[in-house]
């Protein structure tokens, strides 16, 4: 436990200073990054979206390698116009953008405009869209702005993105967007390491659990013996041991090396956005980190999600959302009280957090919630087929009663759930997932196939969110099985396959199954405009997300980029893109150049996504109209997964690929 927040003395000092209220009048002693006037990050003013009348934009972006103060230390970073994250690139829909990228590095670089529709030659992926920007050169992109929303930009060269080369993009809509915010801030989330990212990657390659200091220990074993009984616990341990995988494998890279930054600011320095009580504030949340998923919430302040990946959705009020790497969510908050609110961005593995504050006046703070318990992977994530499992003597009829008791009864048969305290929680089921998955692990459950259905109904009956409870929970809280895996094991570069593939879009993100407030799910996203291209897809492409954590190999269909050829999207056609996640962790899969419409049950109002976080053991389906000619990158946006080969080129062309590959 004590390893979870592996912090340097320097950071402890900062924390202590914050705790003792020494911040006011303490400017001189603060580290430079927190001092006024030394803004290498997006301070209050720089993170506020200026707005103004629609206009063509000409902007210069200077890419430099320089020593800066960051995350409580001093390091060599790649800055954009001397800051990291870089300045807001603010554009207007219907106008033109002329952006000039100047490379002052001694190596090749690039800027990818993430989520932006433009000619592919300007998309900024070296080796795919253009040759890269050589040292001393300037690269100019010039395009009409065809969209509105929150996006971002980052290097697509090597590991430069990890060392600071990211920044926000805000595009104002041409008409009235109906959001009517009084004030807008970008909230850019980053993970920062003082390690050389190449060394970091080498460590993962040599010892893939290097950064995981949350593995199950002897102490956990004793605890599980006590809670669940020896037999159940041993079965669980043997099941994981048999697979040679760890249920505590939540993040490859953790707070052991990362500091998590909000607008470039360490949590102890507390990035603060100011507001006047009663205002509508639009927060444009961008996960610009290399490897980290965040859970974002603002205790005491409901958030209304109004856009996902830049594109507007029908407003959904929620209390927390999980944001995958490279995703963006726009939320509107309306703080009425004259008080500060914490913007809490806890990492999915709970090894750290980024944090900032919305406050009526500078210097005000609100309590920072403690990190919650670390989540665990389940057999659901492994794509295990529960229906094959043997559960002797369970009376299924009990589970039909829409009462938590049914579960209690079930549990008692196996001695693993007696200590559950069902009625305490709001939904009645919130408390069960921990025990529940152990049950699932322990090869319980006779006629699970039939039962799952009944229990799912039951889940729906127990509360507004019951149907969306998720991954750590049992199968009845998990989405339905919609497909099974074929015989292809995807070779030595892949460990696991999703034997059964679930629709998990209605589930909460990993670790949020049990929180007792509202959590956004993908199934809630509903486009504000109906689907434009209503044609039936003429081509279906199924892609499996594959990997070998032990050897730190990552790929699609077990084949890494250097052994693959482009994926062909015939120009003008409607494509159905199916992604099956055979690995036990989520991957944020990003398609450049075109939006994907997520088939999430919203009829003709499927939401647009440029990056979809595909839950482990799940099967997700997206629709794409191939109307943007080009060679577009398609990849996992976890930086080190991409670099290891989880990458393809999607080619939108009117010629067959035969002559070109």
């Amino acid at each position, binding site marked *: 436990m004590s*390893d979870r927040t592996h912090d340097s003395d320097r950071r402890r000092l900062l924390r202590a200073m914050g705790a003792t209220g020494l911040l006011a009048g303490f400017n001189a002693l603060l580290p430079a990054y927190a001092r006024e006037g030394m803004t290498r990050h997006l301070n209050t003013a720089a993170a506020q979206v200026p707005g103004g009348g629609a206009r063509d934009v000409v902007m210069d972006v200077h890419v430099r390698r320089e020593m800066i103060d960051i995350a409580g230390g001093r390091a060599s970073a790649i800055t954009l116009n001397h800051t990291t994250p870089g300045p807001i690139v603010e554009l207007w829909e219907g106008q033109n953008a002329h952006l000039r990228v100047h490379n002052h590095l001694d190596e090749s670089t690039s800027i990818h405009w993430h989520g932006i529709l433009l*000619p592919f*030659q*300007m998309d900024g*992926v*070296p*080796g*795919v*869209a*253009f040759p*890269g920007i*050589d040292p001393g*050169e*300037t*690269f*100019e*992109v*010039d*395009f*009409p702005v*065809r969209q509105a929303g929150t996006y971002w930009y980052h290097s697509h060269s*090597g590991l430069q993105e990890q060392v600071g080369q990211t920044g926000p993009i805000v595009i104002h809509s041409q008409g009235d967007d109906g959001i009517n915010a009084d004030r807008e801030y970008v909230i850019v989330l980053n993970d920062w390491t003082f390690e050389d990212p190449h060394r970091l990657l080498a*460590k993962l*390659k*040599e*010892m893939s659990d*290097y950064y995981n*200091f949350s*593995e*199950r*220990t*002897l102490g956990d074993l004793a605890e599980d013996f006590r809670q669940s009984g020896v037999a159940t616990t041993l079965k669980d341990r*043997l099941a994981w041991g048999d697979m*040679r995988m760890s249920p505590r494998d939540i993040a490859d890279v953790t707070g052991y090396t990362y500091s998590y930054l909000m607008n470039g600011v360490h949590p102890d320095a507390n990035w603060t956005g100011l507001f006047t009580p009663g205002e509508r504030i639009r927060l444009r949340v961008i996960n610009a980190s290399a490897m980290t998923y965040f859970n974002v919430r603002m205790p005491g302040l409901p958030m209304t999600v109004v856009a996902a990946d830049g594109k507007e959705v029908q407003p959904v009020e929620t209390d927390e959302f999980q944001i995958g790497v490279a995703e963006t969510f726009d939320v509107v908050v309306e703080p009425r009280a004259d008080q500060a609110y914490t913007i809490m961005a806890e990492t999915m593995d709970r090894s750290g957090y980024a944090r900032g504050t919305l406050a009526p006046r500078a210097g005000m703070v609100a309590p920072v919630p403690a990190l919650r318990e670390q989540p665990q992977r389940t057999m659901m994530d492994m794509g295990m087929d529960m229906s094959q499992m043997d559960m002797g003597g369970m009376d299924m009829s009990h589970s039909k009663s829409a009462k938590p008791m049914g579960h209690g009864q079930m549990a008692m048969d196996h001695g693993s759930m007696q200590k559950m305290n069902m009625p305490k929680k709001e939904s009645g089921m919130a408390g069960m997932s921990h025990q529940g998955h152990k049950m699932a692990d322990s090869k319980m459950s006779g006629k699970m196939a039939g039962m799952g259905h009944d229990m799912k109904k039951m889940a729906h009956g127990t509360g507004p969110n019951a149907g969306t409870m998720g991954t750590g929970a049992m199968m009845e809280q998990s989405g339905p099985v919609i497909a099974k895996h074929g015989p292809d094991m995807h070779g*030595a*570069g*892949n460990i696991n396959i999703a034997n059964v593939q679930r629709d998990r879009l209605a589930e909460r993100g990993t670790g949020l199954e049990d929180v007792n407030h509202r959590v956004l799910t993908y199934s809630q996203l509903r486009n504000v405009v109906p689907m434009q291209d209503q044609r039936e897809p003429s081509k279906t492409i199924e892609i499996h997300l594959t990997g070998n954590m*032990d*050897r730190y190999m990552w790929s699609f269909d077990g084949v890494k*980029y250097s052994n693959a*050829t*482009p994926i062909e999207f015939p*120009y*003008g056609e409607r494509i159905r893109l199916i992604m099956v996640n055979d690995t036990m962790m989520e991957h944020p899969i990003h398609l450049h150049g075109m939006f994907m419409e997520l088939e999430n049950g919203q009829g003709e109002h499927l939401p647009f996504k440029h990056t979809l976080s595909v839950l482990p053991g799940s099967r997700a389906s997206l629709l794409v109209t191939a*109307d*943007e*000619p*080009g*060679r577009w990158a398609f*990849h996992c946006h976890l930086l080190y997964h991409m*670099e290891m080969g989880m*990458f393809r*080129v999607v080619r*939108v*062309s*009117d*010629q067959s*690929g035969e002559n*070109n*590959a």
Partner: protein
Amino acid sequence: MLKKSTPAILSATVFFLGSTAPALAASDGKADLDSVIPAGPADPNSGAPLNWKKPIHDQQIHKFFLIDRLEYGDVDGTNNYLWDAQGWIGGDYNKLWLKTEGEGPMRGGSPESTEFQALYNRTISPFWSAQAGLRYDVNPNPDRGFAVLGLQGLAPYWFESDTSLFVSEDGDVSFRGEFEYELLITQRLILQPRAEINMSAQDVPEYGLGSGLNNTEMGIRLRYEIKREFAPYIGVRWEQTYGETKDVAQAEGEETSSTAFVVGIRAWY
């Protein structure tokens, strides 16, 4: 750079591609359809011009060097040292794998055993690699060379396994299996049981080996990972000889079993 390409992209060409496809004009901010396939030779992975750099680097050569055991053993009267290290260099599927181990008395003299292996390592499944190559023993005298066939990997239930079949230059066949397991007491305090077994297919009198089971070495080590890369440990090592090998040892007045308390270092880079 785009100075070169921008005008071309935005040149006002208009396409109509049947009734279902939207009309495309370059002024709409989309690329020209004809610009997708390069005129010259194309890279098979990207479809981009052949001479461009790679977008990602998934064929990197990595390397790893592990001193699994470097220890001092306290055995009655004959304190000794032992090393056991291995390393590799290569890609995901093909590696050069090197191993060395040996031991000797603390009080001078040459080591009792000194062994080097150089192997080609091929990834054959998610957790297993096949190995083939050469072993050369400097000690005990005289030097000996072996051909090696091995299987190394992670067995179910997290057993690190390293099994090798050796054929010496004289045609003697022997087998060695090494198995390790890690039990986490805390995230940094790790108990590691270890077992090694050596077998011979025939008598090799010159080296005091009988056919069948030659010897076993069991150990248990408790290490503390100050950093992942550096962990001191303490432990116990039990060695036992069997059968004819034991008879030979007895005849020569050597110990046939021993218990050593060990202190050592595990380190890697």
